[in-house]
């Protein structure tokens, strides 16, 4: 093991190197570019024995990865923002064909207005694409998830492509000290890819990405959905095995901080969690019963674990660095649906922030908790018309310059 001071993108590249993909199909886009730069350097210096394909677009980046995966080889690609949307049609294509491709996505705003900085509008677009989606908090988790991603995606019970999301710039370009495991350690955890089903091979020639009409199509999709939901147990097992071997884990699909007795809980994804941890700690020290829930996976969605963790809270706040225009933050929608399914009755606030790289400061997160604590006092009856007279009242735009 080595300890090095690297950026989030460097950590991704180190993780990919250790995972030994057969082929890397690469196309640059800010703020992902450093990943494909580093990987080209690793291939050049011989520390990574991969074929490096300079594809001419993101569309071809994923298409080429699909070709690689179709013969049972390990594929990696990376993208961001407009690039993710440009390759969009290939995402459900790869997941329907059950190809365990791993892709890093640097979360970045979508045009227009043009903006290269971080938010989650890009990956939220792809929630329905059939890819597993994890959101990491820091560079260490980014590196570790590149290794876990292949192990989960290639599990015969899962066989689903995997998207590792890093907040653009805030995480991709921020330097941290990271433990880099040795190749031997990673090899012991992540064996070479071994796909026997669903691939083209000389031993058992197959037709892939076939047509299934209205007589068969629905069954394929149902199976895909059921197996994605069942992948929750594989994700938990892989994370536990990772912790056992490397001494650090991520508690499966979500992590809770002081949620057991919390009256209010803030739900975060990605790097905002790091800031929220500090604020939550301060408020606890002041005697306020506040908790924090780091939601790591959005697909599969950890409905049970989430509602269990939130069950004692009276007010829940959901942080969204995205908007589904004409509605609300997308994670908010998902959390509400989960709570509703469990018959929960918390008041739920939506904090929309960080769009186009807008700062989300400690003060902003403090303000979120304050709002929730105010609602705690007024939320004796969540059905009280005075509490939430309009649905919009549940949406709070944070750190904005326009009057609302």
């Amino acid at each position: 093991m080595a300890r090095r001071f690297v950026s989030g993108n460097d950590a991704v590249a180190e993780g990919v190197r250790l995972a030994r993909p057969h082929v890397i199909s690469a196309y640059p886009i800010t703020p992902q570019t450093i990943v494909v730069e580093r990987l080209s350097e690793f291939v050049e210096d011989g520390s990574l024995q991969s074929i490096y394909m300079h594809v001419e677009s993101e569309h071809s980046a994923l298409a080429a990865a699909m070709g690689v995966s179709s013969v049972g080889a390990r594929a990696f690609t990376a993208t961001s923002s407009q690039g993710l949307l440009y390759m969009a049609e290939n995402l459900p294509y790869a997941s329907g064909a059950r190809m365990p491709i791993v892709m890093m996505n640097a979360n970045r705003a979508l045009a227009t207005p043009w903006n290269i900085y971080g938010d989650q509008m890009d990956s939220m677009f792809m929630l329905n694409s059939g890819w597993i989606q994890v959101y990491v908090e820091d560079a260490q988790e980014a590196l570790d998830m590149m290794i876990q991603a292949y192990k989960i995606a290639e599990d015969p019970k899962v066989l689903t492509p995997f998207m590792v999301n890093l907040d653009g710039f805030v995480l991709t370009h921020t330097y941290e000290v990271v433990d880099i495991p040795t190749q031997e350690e990673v090899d012991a955890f992540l064996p070479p890819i071994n796909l026997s089903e669903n691939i083209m091979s000389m031993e058992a020639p197959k037709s892939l990405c076939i047509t299934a009409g209205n007589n068969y199509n629905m069954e394929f999709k149902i199976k895909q959905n059921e197996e994605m939901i069942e992948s929750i147990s594989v994700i938990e097992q892989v994370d536990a095995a990772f912790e056992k071997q490397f001494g650090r884990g991520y508690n499966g699909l979500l992590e809770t901080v002081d949620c057991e007795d919390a009256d209010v809980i803030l739900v975060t994804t990605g790097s905002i969690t790091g800031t929220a941890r500090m604020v939550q700690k301060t408020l606890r020290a002041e005697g306020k019963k506040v908790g924090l829930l780091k939601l790591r996976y959005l697909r599969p969605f950890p409905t049970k674990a989430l509602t269990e963790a939130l069950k004692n809270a009276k007010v829940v706040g959901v942080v969204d660095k995205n908007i589904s225009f004409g509605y609300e933050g997308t994670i908010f929608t998902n959390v509400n649906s989960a709570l509703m399914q469990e018959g929960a009755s918390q008041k739920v606030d939506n904090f929309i922030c960080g769009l186009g790289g807008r700062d989300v400061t400690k003060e902003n997160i403090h303000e979120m908790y304050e709002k929730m604590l105010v609602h705690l006092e007024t939320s004796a009856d969540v059905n009280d018309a005075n509490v939430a007279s309009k649905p919009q009242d549940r949406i709070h735009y944070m750190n904005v310059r326009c009057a609302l």
Partner: protein
Amino acid sequence: MERITARNLTNEELFYGHKACGGCGESLAVRLAMKILGERTFASLPAGCMSAVSFIYPNMAFRTNAIITPFASTGAVAAGVAAGLQALGIKDTYSVGFAGDGGTADIGLQALSGAIDRGDQIIYFCNDNEAYMNTGIQKSGLTPFGTKTTTSPAGANLPGSTTMKKNMFEIVAAHDIAYAATASVGYLEDYMMKVEKAKSVKGTSYIHVLAPCPTGWGTTSEITISLAKEAVDCGLWYLAEYEDGEFKLNKNPKEFTPVENYVKKQGRFKHLKDAEIKQLEAARDKKWEKMRRNWVK
């Protein structure tokens, strides 16, 4: 290189049981290519007639490995297959793309260009039936001038398609591709020889084969071969190769058969007026003047 003829061509079928129309030129081009390429072939097919008729669950028409690719992605998927096979050490295989005219000259051009630029070890076939036939006969970049399609109607104001065929062969050659050729299902020995040649090329190969479509061209199914031959004989199509940086015209007729005879056999050209046929001839003559000047040693 041994000539491939009907006599020595294998009887083994690697592409059969598909649901293509009677007289389909494209399925013939794929079938013969597969016979020559053999069973260690990995075929990538984008959206189009050939993928639509041969992968209908649970009936698969390829006996070899085959995959339907996204429409724009023939070149990229075939390149990925080749890279994956190379990385896994699976040798003596062919990664092949079979795309249509729209899948090649329009939506798939970028991915094809990328593959040629990288010199990927693939053989790319453009099976050209001169329109989007699978979706019901719409104009593509390879639809000839004066063609009536469902998106280029012929009427009082328009002669059908108003543009000439995109020059795919020279676009591909301009990449300095290792090997490129044009062919026609009317000259099958020439076509098969070119497929055979592509097998031993190091780098990317491109074979552009004209393949009549009775449904889209408004012809009876039994004239597919003779019509594909006549397309070359009247000079609206040509047989050529690009190899080692040089163009070569494989067939240089002293005299062309009349364009009028060729077009009048086809429903898609029935409306053409004499002046429009003259326009086709003028474009043909200009093209041949250039080819004869530059491509004949």
